[in-house]
């Protein structure tokens, strides 16, 4: 049980952060990057106490398999090595960059391991102290991150405070919002709206979004299916980078059938290597409703094929009816066969504005087609299929620039940073890294 901070203590904490912000800004950017690089390196060490404690805590609080948590930690900290931080800083914190905001308030949500950490680190790099409210479902990771930063450098550590209070507490929220110059709000739309109603000076919304995979016919085989299965199984599709739909460029029905079967086989294997977290009754009901509805439609002649296994905890619904039924998550994916990748844009039009990432399995020559689909959907990320759940630090999460978001906006209101989707280069071959190392 995480201790709840009382409003008076929160006020004192914010007072201290105001002072710490001044000291933080006297640390040169290169030095801040070097400190974070050391922290990241420490977390990547197999024997790291931070890492060990995080794995213990996250497997307990989230129910995710240790393999999934380890994957998350590996990728989270690999993305915060000096080289990548320097590149993002060069792009977003150039000589004519604006002044840092005075204080950031991060209201975290959800239980995807490491969610919100990029924002915490970005604030420090931008010279902005932060008060972080932990998520009810996963309160441990931000505490460990803050402790590891403080252990590496007291000046950065003093500029970061992590606290917990019940979501929606008016006394806490009014205080945190009123004292902050920028608020990063994660979570459900209702939560974001509530924080918006508190009147923040600036609000960066990180609301619920979804992602999908695009598979070109040239690579529609069992090995790509295995990669897709890993991305579906990681964190049980609870994150916005999880593929809920898989758009499959079809060669013929037999190939599609084989791909669906291979996807199911891989998901069944992952049920052993990386078991799904237990479901609540509501979650189980949602899964049941999705699977039974698909089975009923298939029974009544709709062009739908269902491979689902309640015991193994997954479901694949191949749907040719062009009706977009949402996944209930928890390792259930809708496969949408299309004639060409270009068709995916029209098919996914109803979801435009809700897409976070597009994961691509395709030869390099087909990536422009995939990029066009991603742009049409308003996606913020275009990446290789096997990297969907391993975002780079440069990821414009929910459309927000990583570092520039912590600078006082320029009078023109425009951004210095190119808003186009950053290119994440495809790996030479899929399945470059096995997620479930224990498999």
């Amino acid at each position: 049980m995480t201790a709840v901070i009382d409003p008076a203590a929160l006020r004192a904490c914010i007072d201290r952060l105001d002072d710490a912000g001044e000291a933080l800004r006297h640390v040169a950017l290169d030095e801040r990057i070097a400190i974070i690089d050391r922290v990241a390196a420490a977390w990547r060490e197999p024997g790291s106490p931070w890492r060990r404690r995080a794995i213990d805590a996250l497997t307990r609080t989230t129910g995710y398999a240790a393999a999934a948590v380890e994957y998350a930690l590996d990728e989270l900290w690999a993305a915060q090595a000096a080289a990548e931080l320097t590149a993002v800083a060069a792009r977003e914190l150039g000589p004519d960059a604006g002044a840092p905001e005075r204080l950031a308030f991060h209201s975290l949500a959800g239980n995807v391991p490491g969610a919100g950490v990029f924002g915490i680190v970005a604030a420090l790099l931008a010279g902005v102290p932060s008060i972080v409210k932990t998520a009810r479902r996963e309160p441990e990771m931000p505490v460990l991150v803050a402790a590891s930063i403080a252990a590496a450098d007291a000046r950065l550590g003093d500029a970061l405070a992590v606290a917990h209070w019940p979501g929606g507490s008016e006394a806490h929220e009014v205080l945190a919002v009123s004292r902050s110059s920028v608020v990063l709000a994660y979570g459900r739309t209702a939560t974001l709206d509530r924080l918006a109603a508190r009147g923040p000076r600036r609000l960066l919304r990180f609301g619920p979004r979804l992602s999908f995979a695009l598979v070109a016919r040239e690579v529609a085989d069992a090995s790509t299916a295995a990669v897709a299965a890993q991305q579906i199984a990681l964190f049980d599709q609870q994150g916005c980078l999880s593929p809920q739909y898989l758009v499959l460029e079809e060669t013929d029905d037999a190939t599609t059938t084989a791909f669906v079967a291979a996807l199911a086989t891989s998901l069944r294997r992952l049920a052993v290597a990386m078991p799904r977290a237990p479901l609540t009754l509501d979650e189980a009901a949602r899964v049941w409703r999705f699977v039974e509805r698909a089975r009923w439609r298939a029974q009544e002649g709709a062009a739908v094929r269902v491979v689902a296994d309640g015991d193994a905890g997954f479901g694949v619904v191949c749907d040719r009816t062009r009706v977009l039924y949402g996944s209930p998550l928890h390792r259930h994916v809708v496969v949408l066969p299309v004639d060409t990748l270009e068709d995916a844009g029209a098919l996914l039009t109803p979801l435009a504005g809700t897409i976070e990432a597009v994961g691509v399995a395709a030869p390099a020559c087909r990536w422009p087609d995939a990029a066009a689909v991603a742009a049409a959907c308003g996606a913020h990320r275009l990446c290789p299929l096997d990297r969907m759940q391993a975002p780079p630090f440069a990821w414009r999460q929910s459309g927000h620039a990583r570092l520039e978001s912590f600078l006082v906006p320029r009078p023109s209101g425009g951004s210095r940073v190119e808003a186009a989707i950053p290119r994440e280069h495809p790996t030479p071959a899929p399945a470059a890294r096995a997620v479930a190392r224990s498999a």
Partner: protein
Amino acid sequence: MYARIAEVEDAERSVVATPALTPEALTSRVLRFIAAPAASEFDALTLAVHEHQYRANEPYRRFVDRHGATPQRWTEIPAVPASAFRDSILCCATGAPSASARVYESSGTTEGPGRRARHDVPDVAVYRAAALAGFARALAPFTDAATGPLTMSRERGRRDGNWRGTAANAPLSGNGVLASSIAPLAPTARLRRPFIVAAPERHSHPASSLGEMVTWLRETYDAGGPASFLRADVLDLTGLGAALESLDPARPIVLVAVTSALLRLVDHGRDTGRRWHLPSGSVVVDTGGCKGYANDIGRAAILDRYAERLGVAPDAVVNEYGMTELCSQLYARGAGPHRPPPWLRTLVCNPATGREQPLGEPGLLRHVDLANVGSVVAVQTDDVGRAVDGGVELLGRAAGAMARGCSLLVP
């Protein structure tokens, strides 16, 4: 749990054989059961209805075949997901619809107006019989205030040894849910009372199964109340408030309303500083939960609001639970559990396994309703509840599952 149920039902099955029946004969038997329930016949009659539906209802036959089901007792009958009523016509009738056929549609609030549930009822007489008999069991006899309309029924149920666990032949459902503990209405005791209605009626909502039922109730029990204050989904709050103010304090009424209408009336009363005092002995029948109301509030809070603004004690409030896909209803008095009538049995099931939940554990409600003789007898809902001593405690609908992370759940 299963072993004990099996013992009870083996005994039931030995009493009644399951001869093949014509649809007309089957309907007659269901009507006789509703009129004079015999717990020992439920299993055999339910299986006979299932067999008839397997023959006469093509989507249902495909569903049963897909499950490879050959049920030997009512708990084994495969339950059609309620959502199937949105995708298919599940009806046993063939040929042109008869004059006694009806088609009911849901309001579309669950999945939008394009995805309304449709229930084809080939013989409305069964629905009418079930609705009226169920209401009578839950509310009647309308006696004087000193006795209380429901207290008498409950005491009779106790005396009859009809509570869960008190008799070997008690009409238990599979998980111990009491099939009925409310004694049937003695026809001679029935008295008409003025109805005040804020619910759909047939003429304003011809496709509403609730509207049909309310109309039957008025035809049977109403002593001349005004027309419904809910017309074309617009609530006449002023008219409803005025009607309640002009009541004869010596003449108890029956107030039938969708819950959201009464909650809005309560809010209206708070806003305007008004309170109403229903005549002593009055009964409130509400239905629909908080659907259509701004906030989702619990049953206890609803009863408190009724008590505060309508002057009605929780024991005089009866909640009806029904759905378009069912021809029978469950009723709960005050904060008590919902009780099915003898021709309806309710299981509480684990959605992941389809198996019954232990007593007290929440799960999804599965109804086996003999009055659904013309469509499908077993319906799996996504309403959440738990079996408790004497009935089912409703816990809402399992539609609100949220992602634990930042994933967007597409409806």
